[in-house]
C-alpha cells in the first residue's frame, strides 16, 4: 500500500517531446513506472524515445489506458494542460511546471472543482492535482512520477509531504541512510495555490496502513501549516515530525518559491512552528534533524520498535 501512486498507475507525460519531458519520461520509465505514452498537440501518431505520442489527453486515456498525467508544459500553457487532463478524467494530475500565473491557477482550480463535482455526481472518480511547481510523487519500489532522484529512496513505512523539492530529498536521504524507508513522498509544491495541500496528504497517510509515521516540511508564507496543525490535532494518531524552512527569512521578500513570502507580518516560521508544536507535532529547528527525530519518535511506537528490532 501507499498513497495515490503505485505500480498500477499508468502515466502519460504532457509535453513529452520537450527537453525536460523527454529526459524525465525516460527516467521514470527506467525506475519502473508504467509510462504509457505522451501528449504533444500536433505530434500525435508518432513515437518518441519509444513512447507513443498522442494529440490529446482524451486519446491517450482511450488508447493507452492512462489514468495519470505528468505535466512538463511551459508556464503559459500549463493551466490548460491541467484542465485538459481533468476533462479527460485522469485521476491523478501532477504538474511539475514552475512559473504559472496565479490567475491561470485560480481558473484551473475553478474548472477542477466543477469538473470533479460533475464527475462525482455521475458516479465517476474525481481528479487530484498535485503541484504545480513541485517535484512530483514517489512510491519507492512502485512508481516514480516526477523529477526526484529515484535511487535515494527505499521502501518503508514513512510518509513525507513537503512544499520544497530539495528538502524532500534531504529528508529522504536522512531516512534512507538510517535504513528507514518511505511509503510515499509527495511534493505539494511551492506555489501559493497548490492542488493538493498538507491536509489532503496527512488524511491519506493516516488512512494508509503502510504508513506508520509522517514527516511534513513546510515553509514561510500562507497558513497551510497552521491549518495542518489543527487537522493533525483532531485527526492524526500517527507521529508527525515537522520542519519549517525560512526561520531566518526577511519579511516581504519572496524566497524563491512564489508562495514563500511573509506579508503583513503573516506567515512567519515562528507562528507555524508554534502552531505545530501546540498540536503535538515534533518540530525540529534544524533541517539536519528530521531523520533522527523521526527515528526517535517512530521507535517509540509499537510498530516502530518492532521495525527497528
Amino acid at each position, binding site marked *: 500500500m501507499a498513497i495515490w501512486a503505485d505500480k498500477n498507475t499508468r502515466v502519460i507525460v504532457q509535453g513529452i517531446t520537450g527537453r525536460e519531458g523527454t529526459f524525465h519520461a525516460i527516467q521514470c520509465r527506467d525506475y519502473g513506472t508504467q509510462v504509457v505514452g505522451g501528449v504533444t498537440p500536433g505530434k500525435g501518431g508518432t513515437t518518441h524515445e519509444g513512447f507513443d505520442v498522442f494529440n490529446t489527453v482524451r486519446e491517450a486515456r482511450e488508447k493507452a489506458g492512462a489514468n495519470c498525467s505528468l505535466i512538463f508544459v511551459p508556464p503559459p500553457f500549463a493551466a490548460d494542460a491541467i484542465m485538459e487532463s481533468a476533462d479527460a478524467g485522469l485521476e491523478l494530475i501532477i504538474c511539475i511546471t514552475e512559473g504559472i500565473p496565479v490567475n491561470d491557477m485560480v481558473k484551473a482550480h475553478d474548472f477542477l472543482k466543477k469538473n470533479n463535482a460533475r464527475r462525482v455526481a455521475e458516479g465517476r472518480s474525481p481528479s487530484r492535482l498535485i503541484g504545480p511547481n513541485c517535484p512530483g510523487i514517489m512510491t519507492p519500489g512502485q512508481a516514480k512520477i516526477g523529477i526526484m532522484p529515484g535511487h535515494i529512496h527505499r521502501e518503508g513505512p514513512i510518509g513525507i509531504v513537503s512544499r*520544497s523539492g530539495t528538502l524532500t530529498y534531504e529528508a529522504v536521504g536522512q531516512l534512507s541512510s538510517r535504513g528507514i524507508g518511505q511509503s510515499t513522498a509527495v511534493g505539494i509544491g511551492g506555489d501559493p495555490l497548490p492542488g493538493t495541500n498538507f491536509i489532503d496528504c496527512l488524511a491519506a497517510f493516516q488512512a494508509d496502513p503502510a504508513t506508520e509515521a509522517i514527516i511534513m516540511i513546510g515553509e514561510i508564507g*500562507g497558513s497551510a501549516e497552521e491549518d495542518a496543525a489543527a487537522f493533525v490535532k483532531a485527526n492524526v494518531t500517527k507521529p508527525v515530525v515537522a520542519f519549517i524552512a525560512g526561520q*531566518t527569512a526577511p519579511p516581504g521578500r519572496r524566497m524563491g518559491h512564489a508562495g514563500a513570502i511573509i506579508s503583513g507580518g503573516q506567515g512567519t516560521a515562528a507562528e507555524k512552528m508554534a502552531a505545530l508544536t501546540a498540536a503535538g507535532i515534533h518540530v525540529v529547528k534544524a533541517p539536519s534533524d528530521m531523520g533522527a527525530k523521526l527515528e526517535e519518535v517512530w521507535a517509540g511506537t509499537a510498530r516502530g520498535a518492532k521495525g527497528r528490532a
Partner: protein
Amino acid sequence: MKVHEYQAKELLRRYGVPTPRGIVVESPEEARNAATELGGRVVVKAQIHAGGRGKGGGVKLAKSPDEAAELTKSMLGMTLVTHQTGPEGRLVRKVLIEEALNIDKELYLGITLDRRIGMPVLMASSQGGMEIEEVAARDPHAIRREPIDAVLGVQPFQARSVAYALGLTGDAFKKCVDFVGKLMRAYVETDAALAEINPLLVTKEGDVLALDAKMNFDDNALFRHKDIAAMRDLHEEDPLEVEASKFGLNYIKLDGTVGCMVNGAGLAMGTMDIIKLAGGEPANFLDVGGGASAEQVKNAFRIILSDKNVKAILINIFGGIMRGDRIAEGVVSASREIGLPVPVVVRLEGTNVELGKQILKDSGLPLITADGMWDAAQKVVAAAQGR
C-alpha cells in the same frame, strides 16, 4: 513586481478608475509648470517603492506653483526614510504633482489573493490612511471581506455591500459601486497580486477617487504584460539582486557574513536557518537552480563575493539526478577561474558523491568538504569567524 504610485494610477486610469489629475516630474521647473496646469494648489508626492511616505516627509501640500517647485527641489535627491524602507532609506528620483482635493472621507479598499480559498478577496474599511494589518490586528470586524469569483468578476450586490460597509450614501454610494467594479477588472486583467487604494477618497463634492494607489504584479504573468514589465524601476532594487537575476539566479541579500549557494528554494532557506543555529548569520539567500553547472556556480561565486561582508561560503548541493562528480567538477573549475579569497565549505549529496568529494580534495584548492548539513554549517561558521 512593484511599481510606483504614478505608474499604478496610470494603469488604473486605463480601466476607468478615477484618480486625481497628476503629472510626474523630475525637476522643480517641471513641477512649477505641472502645478500651474493643475490649478496651483497641489500635493507634492515623492515616488519610492515604500509606504509611510507622509510621515517621512515625502508628501506635502503646496499652495502655489512656486511652493510646488520649492518642495520638489527639496524632495528630489533626498533619502526618504519610512518604516518600510529600513534605516538606509530610498533616494527620491521622481515626484508626482497632483491636484489638491477637498477631503470629506478617507476610506480603504484593497484586493489581494486569499490563498486559503483560492480566490481574490475585496477588503474594505472606513479607516482609510491606516495600514490594513494594523486595522486587522486592532479590530478585525472593521474590515469587510468579499471573496470574488475571478471568472465571474464582481457581482453588483458585492459592490453594493462594500459601499454600504463604507457608510456611503447617495451619489458617493453609486460612484463607489462603479469604482469597485473597475478596480476589480484592473486587478484581474493586469494580473495584479495586490491593488490597494489607501486612502480611497470621498470629496466634499461627492466624488470617489484613488488618492493613493499601490499595485504589485505577479512576476509569473509579466510575459503577457510587456507594458507593465517595462515599468520596473531597477533603482528600487538591490544592484546585486538585479545582477543575479540576469543569470537566472535567485539571490536575496542579507546582513550576515556567511555566503550560501544552494540548489532549491526550500533547501536554500533551510541552509540559512542552520547557519543561524550554528551561531552564524547568513549573508544571502541564493538558489542556483537544479543544474548547478560550472557556469552557474561561477556566476553565483561572483555575486556572493561582491558582498564585502562575506567571510566564508557554504555550497550545499543535493545532487538529485545530477551526478555529484559533475557538480564537483563545476565547483572546482569555477573556483580556479574566480580565485577564492575566502574559505569555501562544500557539502555534496546525491549520486557519485564519494567521487565528487575526491575531485574536490584532489583539486588542491582550499575547499573544505563536509558530511551533512550540520557538519557543513559548523565548519562554515567557524571559518567565517576565523576559527
